[in-house]
């Protein structure tokens, strides 16, 4: 696995931040200058020295797509972490593919291009405008760096993207169509990505001087989500293949489900149809061959908007569990914000890290659990400090604009079974 998150680049830093509840949300002077209502955001602290480890000087020339930077860092790290290397032969590796999603790519590069074009200077765009702004730029980039010859594509399903990618990779591998797939997702930083959400007035405006407290999933004082950015990446392969290679196995994907609420029955472009959410969770459980009672930890979508209580209600109904019987539940958006298209993959990586750390990572900024949530589940189910716990089954869900849902079931891997 690999990660490039606002509160940690690389698995080691990211894990430490999750255990300690270190926030990656900071005040962004650029957003203040531009008169944003919400002037705080989560942005991975990438520096020039780091870039030199992943990109050649030529690749860095004119590189103005933060999503590609984050995606390449997370993707290349995941590949190396899985014990795989770049293809140095002249033949594509037909069994290795990429499913690496994004919502929109290279927004700053696109802005550059728009200015040049509007000035009548289209000839000055150079050769990298297209590859940095096409949605599939990230999978194309990674596919070229690694020499993959299987499917190389970019999926896009708003904030569901990253979790959808895990399920798409799982499906393709279980169909026997690929041996290893690098899956993940990335999301650009900056005002041109986040502005639309600010305009929708779904970002909090009262924490500009208090960035680390701004993102408050499940809290009574939650005022909206904090925009974030970054990338997460996972290498997926069949258990047989991973065992044969002696690869480090973090977890098994038991199954998952993707669906849409059709923007019907309370669902809309921006709100979920609860029937679809519950169905997605139930189907993921049955596809995984487990029962709802087996789920010990849930990592929710839980963005810190008024919809958090509805999400808890949907989980509770789908699982048929409430009060103290409800699983532990956490949201990492308290520390990383809502990384949009990158949210699912960053949070899948974080969810899985809980297995090897034997810890359930804590929720921050929700000491004041929302009363509507407390009326459904026990306050004990919402860890405010890390809990030492050897989980076997973790469910992760992501929901997105367009009324789209994804739920995946992870199982801890024990080498002796």
């Amino acid at each position, binding site marked *: 696995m690999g990660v490039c998150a606002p509160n940690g680049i690389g698995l080691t830093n990211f894990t430490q931040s999750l255990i300690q509840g270190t926030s990656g949300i900071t005040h962004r002077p650029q957003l203040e200058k531009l008169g944003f209502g919400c002037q705080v955001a989560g942005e991975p602290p990438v520096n020039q020295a780091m870039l030199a480890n992943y990109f050649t000087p*030529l690749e860095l020339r004119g590189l103005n797509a933060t999503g590609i930077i984050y995606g390449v860092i997370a993707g290349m790290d995941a590949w190396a972490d899985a014990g795989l290397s770049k293809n140095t032969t002249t033949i594509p590796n037909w069994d290795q593919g990429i499913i690496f999603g994004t919502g929109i790519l290279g927004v700053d590069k696109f802005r550059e291009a728009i200015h040049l074009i509007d000035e009548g200077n289209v000839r000055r765009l150079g050769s990298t405008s297209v590859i940095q702004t096409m949605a599939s730029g990230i999978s194309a980039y990674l596919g070229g760096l690694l020499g993959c010859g299987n499917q190389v594509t970019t999926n896009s399903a708003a904030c569901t993207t990253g979790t959808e990618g895990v399920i798409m990779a799982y499906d393709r591998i279980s169909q026997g169509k690929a041996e290893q797939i690098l899956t993940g997702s990335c999301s650009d930083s900056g005002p041109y990505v986040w502005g639309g959400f600010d305009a929708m007035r779904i970002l909090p405006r009262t924490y500009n001087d208090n960035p680390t407290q701004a993102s408050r999933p499940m809290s009574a004082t939650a005022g909206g989500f904090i925009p974030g950015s970054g990338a997460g990446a996972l290498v997926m392969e069949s258990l047989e293949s991973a065992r044969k290679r002696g690869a480090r196995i973090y977890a098994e994907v038991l199954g998952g489900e993707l669906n849409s609420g059709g923007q019907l029955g309370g669902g809309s472009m921006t709100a979920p149809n609860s029937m679809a959410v519950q169905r997605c969770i139930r189907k993921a459980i049955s596809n995984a061959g487990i029962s709802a009672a087996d789920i010990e930890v849930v990592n929710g979508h839980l963005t810190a908007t008024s919809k958090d209580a509805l999400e808890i209600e949907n989980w509770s109904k789908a699982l048929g569990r409430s009060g103290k019987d409800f699983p532990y539940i956490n949201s990492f958006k308290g520390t990383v914000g809502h990384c949009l298209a990158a949210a699912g993959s960053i949070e899948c990586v974080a969810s899985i890290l809980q297995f090897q750390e034997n810890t359930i990572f804590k929720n921050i900024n929700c000491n004041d659990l929302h009363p509507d949530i407390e009326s459904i589940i026990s306050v004990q189910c919402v860890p405010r400090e890390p809990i030492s716990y050897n989980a076997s089954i973790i469910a992760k869900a992501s929901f997105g604009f367009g009324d789209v849902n994804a739920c995946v079931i992870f199982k801890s891997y024990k080498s002796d079974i």
Partner: protein
Amino acid sequence: MEREEKYQTLKNIVKVYLPEDVDVTDIKQNSHFMENLNINSANLVDIVLDVEDAFDIRLENEDMDQMQTVNDALAIIDAKLSQK
């Protein structure tokens, strides 16, 4: 600007775009950008833009078509500079 100075400037522009298997010492005045130096056609577009910036000139489409070798580039640069 002397021809040698122009050549060095051009070399410094071109070296950034060389693939891993081509060394900067392989750049000769008669080198063909694509055939000898293995520079891909997309990057040739970027070399043209860098040349425009470095010499403060503007290259037209027909100039780009004629710019096959290092010598071609130097000749075009000379011609453009003399028109200024």
